[in-house]
């Protein structure tokens, strides 16, 4: 019996009981909350990270922001919608349809496009949409510099003088030369139509394009109005009931919630507390796809057009300046293992193709390389490296879920042919800078183009102009000539030859070893209909409905 046992006082028990009953009370409080909104007309979307700007022309606007710009703003024209073989809807890059414009006409010589605007279209504040607003918006896109200006330039839209107000409801774009990318480029996210009167009220002498104000506000007239944005937490949109540029959306309200933990996103979907989950980890989507619709929710996966996950080899440095060494690496890559254990089958293989030449002018298409270590070793010997060499594999830490296992598998395979590679993991903030330096001998990266043309991909990815996406610093006059010819080719037969020509060159020279075409996986409840894949890889709420 302890001396201290005399202090066994009832008061302690009371304090303890109070503490535990407070917790019990709190547990009891956590009931089902009454729904303030009708769940049926509200779409709840889960994302890993949300937008960082409401202005598509802003400095540093991330791709997460496209969802806001795309749904809040209209463009003059947009893309049509087609149904893919598996029944999923996708935008149709070959079909340009009017949106804010009622109609458009390309001049016979292809050097100008005239748009007739809808007379009944209004911005969210009620102001009518006029050609002056359109001109202001196009002028802004080509003047503010950075990404929007760069994107406009891809369609030969470069100077404000090209944009002409004919009358209040007629707008003309003059083109320096016929360019097949001009019209599609007016249907991407960047040339959104801003309410110029509203925006001008917030412009200053130092900031003539109201960049500061536009970061957090909208001057839009599209199908959805910005309701409230809490950066890092949530963004909500309400339907614009006066929208005239298309059929009225079925969804009345959209809530996009940021949920950083992938496990929680999955739990929320399985409990039915959310309707759509984007940013699916490949392992999760592979598991849910394997359930074949018997699980709580489904995943719709669409291959991302004109995109590649690839291994790049810097061609300006030894030993990868030698095409034979590059081919040796291409024969050493353990493709099967990468598809199976790095991306769980959520990718379209872009290697082990039949024959050794392109089958048609489609892009991307499988390269002929197969895992064949004997061949790799032989090529390496022919190139003068019978004992291999030392090198590094660089990956983006921001994409480590897939890239890290890929790098490890590659490292192991290279070891078998005598190439000793170390893995360098570069933080997301620094990766682009590292790629710009073009001195990372082996790197695993991805690239995709918004405009779905092979020559567009090659212009950024293989051309000797050496854009940042040509991470291999590959330069070959023969390649450049073919790409340049295809870019403005009017004759379909010649175009096909040129495209197959540069794809063949890319296969033979192997500066970039394609791994797979990435798949955009979106998780959704079974009652969600009308999901449509868009080139910008974000949701378009206008087509979605809950049944």
């Amino acid at each position: 019996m302890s001396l201290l046992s005399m202090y066994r006082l009832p008061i302690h028990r009371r304090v303890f009981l109070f503490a535990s009953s407070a917790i019990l009370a709190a547990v009891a409080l956590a009931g089902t909350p009454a729904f303030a909104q009708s769940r049926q007309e509200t779409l709840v979307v889960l994302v890993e990270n949300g937008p960082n700007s409401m202005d598509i022309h802003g400095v540093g606007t991330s791709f997460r922001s496209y969802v806001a710009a795309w749904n809040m703003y209209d463009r003059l024209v947009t893309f049509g919608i087609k149904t893919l073989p598996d029944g999923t809807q996708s935008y149709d890059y070959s079909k340009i349809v009017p949106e804010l414009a009622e109609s458009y006409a390309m001049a016979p010589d292809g050097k100008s496009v005239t748009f007739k605007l809808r007379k009944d279209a209004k911005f969210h504040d009620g102001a009518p949409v006029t050609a002056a607003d359109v001109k202001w918006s196009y002028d802004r896109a080509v003047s503010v510099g950075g990404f929007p200006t760069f994107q406009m330039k891809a369609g030969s839209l470069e100077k404000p003088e090209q944009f002409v107000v004919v009358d209040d409801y007629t707008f003309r774009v003059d083109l320096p030369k016929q360019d097949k990318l001009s019209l599609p480029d007016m249907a991407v996210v960047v040339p959104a139509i801003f309410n110029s009167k509203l925006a001008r009220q917030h412009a200053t002498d130092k900031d003539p394009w109201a960049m500061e104000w536009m970061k957090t506000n909208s001057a839009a007239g599209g199908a959805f109005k910005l309701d409230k944005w809490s950066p890092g937490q949530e963004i909500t949109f309400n339907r614009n009931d006066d929208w005239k540029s298309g059929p009225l959306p079925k969804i009345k309200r959209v809530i996009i919630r940021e949920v950083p933990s992938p496990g929680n996103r999955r739990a929320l979907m399985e409990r039915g507390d959310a309707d759509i989950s984007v940013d699916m980890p490949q392992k999760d989507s592979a598991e849910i796809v394997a359930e074949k619709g018997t699980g709580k929710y489904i995943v719709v996966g669409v291959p991302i057009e004109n995109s590649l996950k690839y291994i790049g080899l810097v061609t300006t440095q030894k030993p990868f300046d030698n095409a034979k060494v590059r081919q040796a690496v291409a024969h050493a890559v353990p493709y099967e293992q990468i598809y199976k254990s790095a991306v769980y089958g959520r990718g379209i293989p872009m290697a082990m193709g039949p024959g050794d030449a392109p089958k048609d002018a489609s892009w991307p298409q499988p390269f002929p390389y197969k895992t064949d270590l004997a061949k790799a070793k032989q090529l390496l010997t022919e190139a003068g490296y019978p004992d291999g060499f030392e090198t590094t594999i660089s990956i983006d830490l921001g994409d480590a879920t897939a890239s890290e296992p890929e790098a490890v598998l590659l490292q192991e395979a290279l070891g078998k042919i005598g190439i000793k590679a170390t893995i360098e993991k570069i933080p997301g903030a620094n990766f682009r800078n590292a790629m710009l330096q073009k001195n990372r001998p082996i790197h695993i990266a991805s690239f995709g183009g918004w405009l779905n043309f092979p020559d567009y991909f090659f212009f950024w990815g293989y051309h000797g102009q050496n854009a940042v996406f040509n991470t291999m610093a590959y330069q070959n006059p023969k390649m450049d000539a073919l790409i340049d010819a295809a870019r403005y080719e009017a004759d379909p037969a010649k175009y096909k030859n040129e495209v197959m020509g540069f794809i063949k060159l890319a296969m033979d020279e192997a500066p970039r070893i394609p791994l797979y075409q990435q798949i955009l996986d979106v998780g959704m409840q079974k009652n969600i209909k009308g999901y449509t894949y868009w080139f910008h890889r974000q949701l378009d709420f206008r087509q979605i409905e809950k049944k």
Partner: protein
Amino acid sequence: MLSLIGKRIVSAIPSVIGVLVVTFVLTRALPGDPAAYFAGPAATPQAIEEVRRSLGLDKTLPEQFVVYIKDLATGNLGNSIATGQPVLTEIRTRLPASLELTLYGLLVSVLIAVPLGVLAATRPGSWIDHLCRVVTTAGVSLPAFFTGLLLVYVLYYRLGWAPAPLGRLDIFYSAPTTVTGFYTIDALIEGNLEIFRAALAQLLLPVTALAVFTLAPLARMTRAAMLEVLGSDFIRTARASGLPKGKIVYGYAFRNAMLPVVTTLGMVFSFLLGANVLVEKVFSWPGIGTFAIEALVASDYAPIQGFVLTMALLYVMLNLAIDVLYIVIDPRVGFES
């Protein structure tokens, strides 16, 4: 007492200045090029230069420092490039979120740990002492984010008792008018009991996770301090003099045992504020820790500096509050200084 508080504040000034200089230099020494990052994927080298100029990063370090100090003097902490918001606004909305979570976590923790520690000390070797030992060992060996994930899995995913781990409020509620920034308090001020309930429900799981984690040091410290005091001479004297048991334990023993407990409390609090990043991630809590980590990943200078500065000021205030508490608990402390 007032002069002591004044002295404390004055002595904090050099450390705050030191913090300013160190964070400025450290953020600049981070690897990564914010200009390349924020110029976007399609940037040309000259576009990156443009961004560098617009961010003021083309100036020399001393010049940048002068600009920074000037901005700071006018209360301008700069803009976060990643979220596009002024850092001051971000901190103003995110700090209360973190504080609310941390304070509730501590409150629950103290409400359980202190009685548990006292009970364990008054009957060593009894079942309650063993319980205390089990709880503290479990608490210290379970990282808060793990407890959090476990709670979400069982109470939300499996049983459906707890609300979805979606931050401070369920999707279909809107936040109360900001007065303190604490949703529970603001909801009460507004008189909106439904929002109060909803906010409290969201707090439940993360607070439990934090409380379980912080229970251990507090309960152990309480137990140890109580044991020491209860074994000291003046307690024996008090008992020999026939004082009532309640008076002995609460009036003398507990009060004397409070000092180390308060010190631990301060340490745990400051540790929690910075360390509950993972809990914030698990519960999608829009707190300040997540904000700082994301800024670090993006080499976004302004928010990092703002975060460290806020934390430094908070620590200064925390230390001050603990010193004042010392004086309240033990008047001798005040005389000594």
